[in-house]
């Protein structure tokens, strides 16, 4: 009880702190200098109409690389901790309706995911969202055919290949163009076309494949984790 009271006092103090922060907060009228530079020059320098994409891939490309590395580490630690020791897990067979519907829906969902991350430089969307949609297509496959195993090596190969290509494109940018992940490696093209914005669509393709295979790997590891047999 005294612990809860103490915690309440602590949180109330934090709330008062935040409250003073809010009451001092002034509604902004202008962008700060960096953001206005991105908004002014982003289209010319990168050719991406979606400024968030320009920031994620070009200006903060190293952050994105670090983020992808963190995700890779998470997936590998997860796989390390959840090694399957016993035989195969038995799942209840799913119904015929779900199987047919999943066969009908999976291509549509995969197509939607690819659309989202290929069009990342023009419309809202990009590698992370498209990767999540791809992973959801794989989860639907798991739900429909729970006893079929999907090859983990395919996931691993996709993941490693796309990660390697991401780094290679970045290094090629240092050699051939202005810097790491510079998008002027390829000609910029006309703004608004699908093939434009230099290497940004290619980078987002690899980011999407990598994120999708990693999220699918996380779900696969959790699915085949050994069940609690004790008691």
């Amino acid at each position: 009880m005294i612990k809860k009271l103490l915690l309440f006092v602590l949180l109330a103090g934090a709330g008062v702190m935040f409250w003073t922060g809010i009451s001092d907060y002034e509604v902004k009228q202008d962008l700060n200098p960096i953001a206005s530079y991105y908004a002014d020059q982003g289209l010319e320098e990168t050719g991406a109409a979606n400024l968030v994409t320009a920031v994620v891939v070009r200006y903060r490309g190293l952050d994105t690389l670090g983020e992808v590395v963190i995700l890779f580490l998470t997936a590998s630690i997860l796989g390390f901790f959840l090694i399957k020791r016993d035989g195969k897990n038995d799942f209840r067979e799913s119904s015929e309706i779900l199987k047919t519907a999943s066969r009908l829906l999976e291509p549509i969902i995969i197509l939607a995911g690819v659309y989202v991350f290929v069009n990342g430089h023009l419309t809202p969307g990009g590698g992370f969202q498209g990767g999540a949609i791809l992973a959801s297509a794989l989860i639907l496959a798991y739900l429909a055919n729970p006893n079929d195993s999907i090859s983990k090596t395919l996931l691993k190969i996709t993941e490693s290949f796309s990660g390697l290509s991401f780094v290679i494109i970045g290094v090629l940018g240092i050699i051939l163009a202005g810097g790491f992940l510079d998008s002027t490696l390829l000609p910029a093209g006309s703004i608004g076309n699908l093939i434009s914005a230099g290497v940004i669509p290619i980078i987002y393709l690899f980011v999407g494949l990598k994120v999708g295979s990693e999220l699918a790997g996380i779900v696969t590891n959790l699915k085949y984790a050994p069940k609690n047999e004790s008691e």
Partner: protein
Amino acid sequence: MESNLNIIIAIVLGVIILIFAALAIYHKKLSVAIIAAGAVSLLASIMYLLLAAPDVAMTEAAIGSGLSVIIFFYALNKIRKHHD
């Protein structure tokens, strides 16, 4: 005028988000708590849309309320015997 409508929607969304958060913390059944946490993410994605951030809204809707709920349920399925 339109911005007034946005403010009303934001207030309603905020109240519902906080109610769902309380449900997620205090409900006794774990499955209900997990679904409430997913609902918090889903309503937060509408809030991002009001804040002119469609990219973030897409990500939150796909990941926060889709994949993370599935992962929670897989984990819950593994430890089903210890519901206490």
